[in-house]
């Protein structure tokens, strides 16, 4: 009897392998690359202003004055246009947005803000993408919530839609 049972072991192992592979094939793929810095302090950086008349952004600024919503965007990025109304809505709620403009030019940025709204308190120019990589961000747009001590608490990957607003606001309130 014991001998008979052992013949079923290979089939059992095979079924386990097949179900693992099958599950992996049919599960919706999550291609988002999350930052490894969530729960850690914002790395040091100091970005110059991306356009005249608006301050740039530094890690020192993020470590003071309560929580911050940091939006990594670019005028050449199409999904950034999609999320612009949501950023405006956040700003109207009294949540200031600090921007990091990736590989952008002042004139393009000005045209983008004129066309799609301007919720930004400050915009740093990340011309060589160094700060984006420093933050562990893999694309535009991405949004980070940084708490009052300069610790990264939340990362949103991709355009912010209506449905994502609650999560951002909750993360911002929790970061107070």
């Amino acid at each position: 009897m014991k001998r008979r049972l052992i013949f079923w072991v290979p089939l059992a192992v095979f079924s386990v392998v097949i179900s693992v592979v099958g599950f992996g094939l049919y599960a919706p793929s999550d291609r988002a690359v999350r930052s490894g810095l969530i729960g850690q302090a914002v790395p040091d950086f100091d970005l110059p202003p991306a356009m005249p008349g608006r301050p740039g952004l530094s890690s020192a600024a993020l470590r003071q004055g309560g929580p911050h919503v940091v939006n990594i965007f670019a005028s050449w990025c199409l999904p950034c246009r999609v999320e612009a109304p949501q950023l405006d809505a956040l700003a109207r709620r009294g949540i200031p947005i600090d921007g990091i403009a990736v590989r952008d030019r002042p004139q393009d940025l000005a045209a983008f803000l004129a066309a799609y709204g301007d919720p930004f308190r400050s915009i740093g120019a990340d011309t060589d993408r160094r700060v984006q990589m420093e933050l562990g961000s893999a694309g535009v747009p991405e949004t980070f919530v940084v708490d009052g001590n300069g610790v990264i608490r939340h990362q949103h990957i991709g355009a912010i839609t209506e449905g994502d607003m609650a999560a951002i606001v909750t993360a911002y309130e929790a970061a107070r």
Partner: protein
Amino acid sequence: MRAALFGLALLAAAPALADSLLPAARYADVQLADPNQERQAKALMETVRCLVCQGQSIADSDAEMAGDMRSLIRERIEAGQTPDQIRAWLISRYGDWVTYEPTFGPATWALWAAPFLLILAGLWLARGRFKRRGRG
């Protein structure tokens, strides 16, 4: 006429693949002057995953972000960092997923240990076989 209009429409269409208007980063497509440093940088690039294309290394990818990452690696090698330091920095930002050469850690030890465990299991199975044959 219709073909001409179609051609015009194609010309006028904005490319869906968005890249910025700025020129490529300094060392995106420029080799380092020191061949030894360039060799180290190239070897590292071939084992770092492009984050926006997926399934390609940054050495193979034409994506703008891959160019920025190549430039970052070359600049850090030039500044005297070792490939291992740069890989560790990338992993701290983007997770194990960014490297094609998995490191040994809590999540990956099974990957490294599996071949040896399987060989041991095979030897153990074969041992039983040899014993039986010897007796018969």
